[in-house]
């Protein structure tokens, strides 16, 4: 029988620990496929965050580190500087990257650190049980914004791609969505580009995935996708912010 679909080599056989309908598994697969395609499995290493993806160090099929909350870009910096012959990525959620780890991501990007950062934005803290994130939308209810996120009190959601796009050094910045099969195909192309640039030592590459959290949003997976399309995409607009590798168009 012909095998037409199988687990990427860059994923282990350890079962994912994610909730039904969660998109982390899709994001993991896209990254693993891109690593396989670039033939990087034996030179790849990554950093798992704190949050739902904390066990990512078990899921990727090569040496991995697990970092303190928000510190993955600093840990990845230490790894890349210590082993310039290897390729390093971080995988981080919005609480990890956009709140407690803001300094680390901004400065790793500003140094143009030769790492890839994959950022999953689902507007909520998943693992700790649905608290407000820096990306939680205005008036959105969470367990720590039970009356809705009041922007006069706690401010507006942070748009990380836009923020990083103000820096000179980053090589590639793109926001994609995981909210439909067509979007996932587009997301795959962004991940491929980030991993390819990583292999080629071009510089700092960043891909944000707009995603869902059916469990903590209190929606079934299909409705969560619809909700995210209607509410998240207008605020977190998908698009290419920076691609220094693209040919200059006239």
């Amino acid at each position, binding site marked *: 029988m012909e095998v037409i679909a199988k687990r990427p080599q860059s994923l*282990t056989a350890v079962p994912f620990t994610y909730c039904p309908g969660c998109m982390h598994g899709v994001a993991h697969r896209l990254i693993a496929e891109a690593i396989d395609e670039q033939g990087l*499995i*034996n*030179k*790849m*290493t990554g*950093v798992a965050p704190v949050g739902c993806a*904390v066990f990512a*160090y*078990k899921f990727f*099929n*090569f*040496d*991995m*580190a*697990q*970092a*303190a909350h928000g*510190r993955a870009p*600093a*840990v*990845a*910096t*230490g*790894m*890349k*500087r*210590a*082993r310039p*012959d*290897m390729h390093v990525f971080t995988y981080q959620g919005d609480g990890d990257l956009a709140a407690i780890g803001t*300094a*680390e991501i*901004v*400065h790793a990007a500003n140094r143009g650190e030769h790492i890839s950062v994959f950022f999953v934005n689902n507007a909520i803290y998943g693992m700790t049980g649905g608290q407000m994130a820096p990306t939680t939308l205005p008036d959105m209810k969470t367990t720590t914004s039970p009356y809705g996120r009041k922007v006069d009190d706690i401010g507006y959601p942070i748009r990380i791609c836009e923020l990083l796009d103000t820096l000179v050094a980053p090589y590639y910045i793109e926001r994609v969505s995981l909210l439909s099969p067509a979007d996932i195909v587009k997301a795959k192309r962004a991940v491929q580009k980030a991993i390819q640039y990583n292999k080629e030592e071009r510089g700092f590459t960043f891909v944000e995935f707009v995603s869902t959290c059916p469990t903590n949003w209190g929606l079934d997976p299909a409705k969560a996708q619809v909700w995210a399309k209607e509410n998240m995409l207008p605020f977190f607009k998908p698009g290419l912010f920076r691609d220094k590798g693209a040919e200059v168009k006239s």
Partner: protein
Amino acid sequence: MSKILMKGNEAVAKAAINAGCRLYFAYPITPQSELIEYMAKMMPTVNGVFLQAESEVSAINMVYGAAGCGKRVMTSSSSPGVSLKMEGISYLAGAQLPCVIINVQRGGPGLGDIQPAQGDYFQATKGGGHGDYRLIVLAPASVQEFADMASDAFDLADKYRNPVMILADGMLGQMMEPVEFKTPKTDEEIEELGRQHEDWCICPNQDGDLKHHHEINSLEIDPLVLEQHVIKLYKKYDQIEANEIRYETHNINDDNEIVVASFGTASRVVRSAVDELNAEGHSIGMVRPITVWPFPYEEIAKSIGPKVKKVYVFELNTGQMLEDVKLAVSGKVPVEFWGKVGGIVFTPAEIKEKLQACF
């Protein structure tokens, strides 16, 4: 090799490079700035990595990443900065990563001041970060010893896969003394040092049977697994306590009327006072812990001779090592304490006066 007149901060940096340190991540803070500046200047000359981090928190996490790759890596700071590193130090201890951390202590708490102090003894030896762990902590008393400890610290870190702290102070950091350096390690020797960790560290992979999946990690979500991990750490700490206690005694004998205990810069001043009093016909013995963890409890107990009336502890704090000395003495004789704080270093005359009052 001839001696070079150098500040402690620069001497320990030079000695660390000689010992094979090729990665250094830090953030500026007084009174350790000469250390980071020396590294900025010299690391590029040995093809090493110098990186000024955006914060102490990032610096220690860069250390975590580099140590996870099995390389000799160091960071340095002073008291308030070391507090910020404590999160990372706990993770380093949990993940069993070898590295060296230098604390050039200053006055505290809070922002305190920038003068020499020993107020971080508790933080260094009793935890500081969260969870059950131990740091190996070396306390130098001269610029020469500060420099010598760099290679000792890296060897201990590698041997036990544990972070090692050198607990110095602003006096040792700023003071110039003649220093003799060991022969620098060659690039081949440094490569070899890295290779000893290849059975657990992050390194390039291979296909087939040689494929590995090394995890640099301090998370064990299953309590029964975490329990085993912590027990394993404690067995390691037992080994360190059995093998690595370092201390120095001075004039310990059966005629001692008083035994004094002091560490680091404070011990230099205390020793001058002890020598003067002994020249005047008294008999005072002295113990100086060099490892403040593991602490020389038994060695201090054994130093208390039959005529000793009192053990006197002198520190540049309000009495921190004092608690360990009391545990060592275990009620056998009274233990008295005197210290100075605020970044003020006591004089030999002050120590002499305190000791004379005991006779």
